């Protein structure tokens, strides 16, 4: 039984890179020896060349670190404050009702539309990107946390009522831990959104970061560098997601 399981695990690991290899092969074959196609679509070997160049001159690491910093700070601020606001709304149905249209309004405004305002308020350096990452993540965290707080199993609330627990005790001992899974889900969603917020800020106006690197390279028709930037963004998102999944595993060990 154990050997069958490990066999299927090996097969699973072997199958993982297959779609990527298929894509790279098609890309390589489609652009091989064709200068015109390589100019428009670049090619795997050109992307690899650009990658080494950017690693050697330190540009990739520097720009990646800037984007990670902006996204992470925005993510932490947005998710934490969103979770606090969302969970606190459990305290008052009236406040939650009044807050609902405002949260919906904030959630429906495309972050692209807010970017010029935020940049003119916070300037073109790192703070405007953090603010955009914050705005991208805060509403998701509010909505998810509030849903989590409302989805607490009635039998737990009944128990707390029977044992004459205060509202604060019910909040601390039941609502908060019970909503944790919702907050963690918000965190997973917010990683991509925080990166998007930071990227949009860099895309519109910046002097550093992966967004800036991509915009500058696309202006010069340097598609290989654009691809390196995009791949770097994907890798950062995957790493941060893996980090949240680790945190989830640690915090939700009771559910395993």
């Amino acid at each position, binding site marked *: 039984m154990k050997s069958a399981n490990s066999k299927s695990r090996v097969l699973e690991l072997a199958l993982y890179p297959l779609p990527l290899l298929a894509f790279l092969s098609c890309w390589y074959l489609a652009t091989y020896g064709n200068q015109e196609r390589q100019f428009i679509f670049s090619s795997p070997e050109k992307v690899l060349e650009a990658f080494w160049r950017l690693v050697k001159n330190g540009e990739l690491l520097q720009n990646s670190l800037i984007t990670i910093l902006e996204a992470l700070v925005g993510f932490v601020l947005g998710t934490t404050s969103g979770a606090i606001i969302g969970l606190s709304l459990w305290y008052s149905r009236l406040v939650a009702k009044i807050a609902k249209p405002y949260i919906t309004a904030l959630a429906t405004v495309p972050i692209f539309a807010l970017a010029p305002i935020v940049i003119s308020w916070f300037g073109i350096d790192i703070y405007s990107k953090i603010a955009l990452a914050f705005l991208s993540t805060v509403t998701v965290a509010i909505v998810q946390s509030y849903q989590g707080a409302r989805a607490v199993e009635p*039998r*737990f609330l*009944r*128990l707390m*009522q*029977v*044992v*004459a*627990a205060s509202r604060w*005790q019910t909040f601390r*001992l*039941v609502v908060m*831990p*019970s909503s*944790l899974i919702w907050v963690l889900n918000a965190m997973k969603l917010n990683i991509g959104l925080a990166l998007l917020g930071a990227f949009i800020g860099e895309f519109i106006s910046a002097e550093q970061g992966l967004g800036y690197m991509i915009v500058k390279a696309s202006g010069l028709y340097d598609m290989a560098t654009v691809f390196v930037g995009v791949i770097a963004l994907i890798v950062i998102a995957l790493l941060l997601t893996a980090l949240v999944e680790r945190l989830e595993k640690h915090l939700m060990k*009771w*559910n395993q």
Partner: protein
Amino acid sequence: MSTNLLTIDGLCFDFAGEAKLLSQVSLTVQNGEIVCILGASGCGKTTLLNLIAGLLSPTSGTIAINSQKQSKIGYIFQSDALFPWRTVKDNLLLAAAIDKSLDKKALEQSMLQYLAMFHLSEQTLAKYPKQLSGGMRQRVSIIQSLMFDPELLLLDEPFSALDYYTKLKLEDEFCQFVKVRNTAAILVTHDIEEAVAIGNRALIMSGGKLQKEYHIKSNNDLLERGSTLFAEKYREIWTELKSVVSEIR
């Protein structure tokens, strides 16, 4: 003369003018007494427990609990209310998390005594509810309620989801507990056998009213299922319930 622990007088309940769920229910319960309430689904049994527990407010009538204790009521629900994110120990010490004035060491002592009483090992304490069987979870749930040292226990079909042998064992443990602690209990059940085995009195409820009352026995020992008294009481209650159910149909 023993005084009543619980006195319910003319209790009525409905949801905002809709049909009455409870109508003129009057009942008294004394210390050390197990009262079983039987009846078809929707007859108002759980509503009555929720009213006694203070989870609902009566439309009219009174509920008086004659107790000096801070936590007067323990409620054991049909499905356990153990918090899945807390270990069994943390679930059992919920009382300490809620009432900071309680002596945690003394609580831990009683927790160990209850574990022994309900035949649970100390290894159970480190586990999460998800790691326990249904019977073990229900026992832990019962102990969790007892940790608040309630004067009156309300039980809403607590043994219904268990297999027959676990149920028999838990019923016996429960009777022993009531006997030792002189606690009163109101048990809602669909099971006549259970009511006859563990109850001192059985009340038949129908259409939101208490229809009939049966005295079963005076002591808190489990009534032998093969005994003549058991068969006699079972037949009496069964006949009454059968006529009540056929009236509803």
